[in-house]
């Protein structure tokens, strides 16, 4: 069955209590963070703690992602070398460039051979959080076959642009479109930037809906309390499911009559509409909604 990546929950890498509870909070993916959530003086400590945690804690029910430090810092390469040896599902790479992803890919191939892991088993999730990354997102994705998703990091991106980040998010409208289009074209998941006001659930729902309507498949979260809201927005509505089921039923009837195109409720139904209905029904089945 297809694994969902609707919510990716950030957890600070130097906090044992949070590392222990990360997998039971309901998120589809957990991101153990060695970057922004860890102070410069604790980078060594967090790296070792996360490595030891992955060795003993059962993360099998979630996608286990570790966000390493950027490769242009003194910590990035060491993070990748130490963490890849305990085989997380994916590594999240901040401010990734094509060249860096190619280098990481080679590094991982070497580690996988040394450790006896299947080649290509450790995946990559680059973060688009700079003007360069945004402009080159499609080629960044295609620089390694390991890339399975892209996270849009709007805080750093707007900082790189020197513009203000707002709750409404008009300033990232283009970035969202650009990232989601590239992700769809490359057939990888598009993960939206976190909503940073953890007490505003209405705002979170609106922001998630906006991302969903632009083609994002998931959203990062920075607090477990955000998970239910994001999941409820990303799930198909009852109306959408019913409509999708009716389309598929009408398709079956049309097929029996040998019709390629047919109409339902006075509207033409053709392949794209049928495909969307199939996607909706598949998702609803995965979520136990039908």
């Amino acid at each position, binding site marked *: 069955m297809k694994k969902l990546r609707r919510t990716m929950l950030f957890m600070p890498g130097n*906090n*044992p209590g949070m590392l222990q509870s990360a997998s039971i909070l309901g998120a589809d993916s957990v991101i153990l963070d060695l970057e922004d959530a860890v102070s410069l003086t604790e980078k060594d400590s967090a790296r*070792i703690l996360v*490595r030891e945690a992955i060795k003993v804690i059962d993360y099998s029910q979630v996608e286990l992602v570790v966000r390493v430090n950027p490769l242009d810092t003194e910590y990035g390469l060491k993070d990748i070398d130490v963490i890849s040896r305990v085989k997380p599902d994916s590594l999240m790479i901040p401010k990734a460039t094509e060249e860096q992803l190619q280098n990481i890919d080679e590094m991982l191939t070497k580690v996988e051979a040394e450790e006896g892991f299947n080649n290509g088993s450790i995946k990559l999730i680059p973060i688009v959080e700079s003007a360069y990354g945004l402009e080159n997102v499609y080629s960044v994705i295609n620089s390694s076959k390991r890339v399975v998703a892209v996270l849009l990091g709007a805080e750093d991106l707007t900082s790189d642009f020197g513009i203000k980040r707002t709750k409404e998010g008009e300033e990232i409208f283009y970035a969202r479109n650009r990232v989601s289009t590239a992700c769809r074209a490359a057939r990888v998941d598009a993960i939206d930037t976190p909503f940073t006001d953890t007490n505003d659930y209405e705002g979170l729902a609106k922001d998630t809906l906006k991302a969903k309507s632009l083609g994002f498949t998931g959203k990062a979260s920075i607090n477990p309390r955000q998970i239910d809201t994001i999941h409820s927005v990303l799930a198909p509505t009852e109306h959408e499911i019913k409509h999708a089921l009716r389309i598929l039923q009408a398709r079956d009837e049309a097929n029996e009559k040998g019709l390629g195109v047919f109409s339902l409720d006075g509207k033409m139904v053709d392949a794209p509409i049928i495909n969307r209905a199939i996607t909706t029904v598949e998702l609803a089945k995965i979520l136990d909604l039908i």
Partner: protein
Amino acid sequence: MKINKIAKAGTLESNDILIMVMPNENGGVELELESIVMKQFGKQIKKTILDKVQELDVDNITIKAQDKGALDYTIKARMQTAIERAM
């Protein structure tokens, strides 16, 4: 392996352990442990700390640890960090 200076790792938050290590001028390994679960797990925590010292082959070390309910993996990680920082 020899440590040369005083170093600390960990915190006093719940589920964590704060470990301080320093060279032991008297020679050998000395361990002082405080734990909120001393009665139940004191022996096990000491063993985990001492096993790590042995694994890293460190002699002449004094260890002071304040445990706030850390699991074994945390104790091992903090111990390794403290020793690496003390070298």
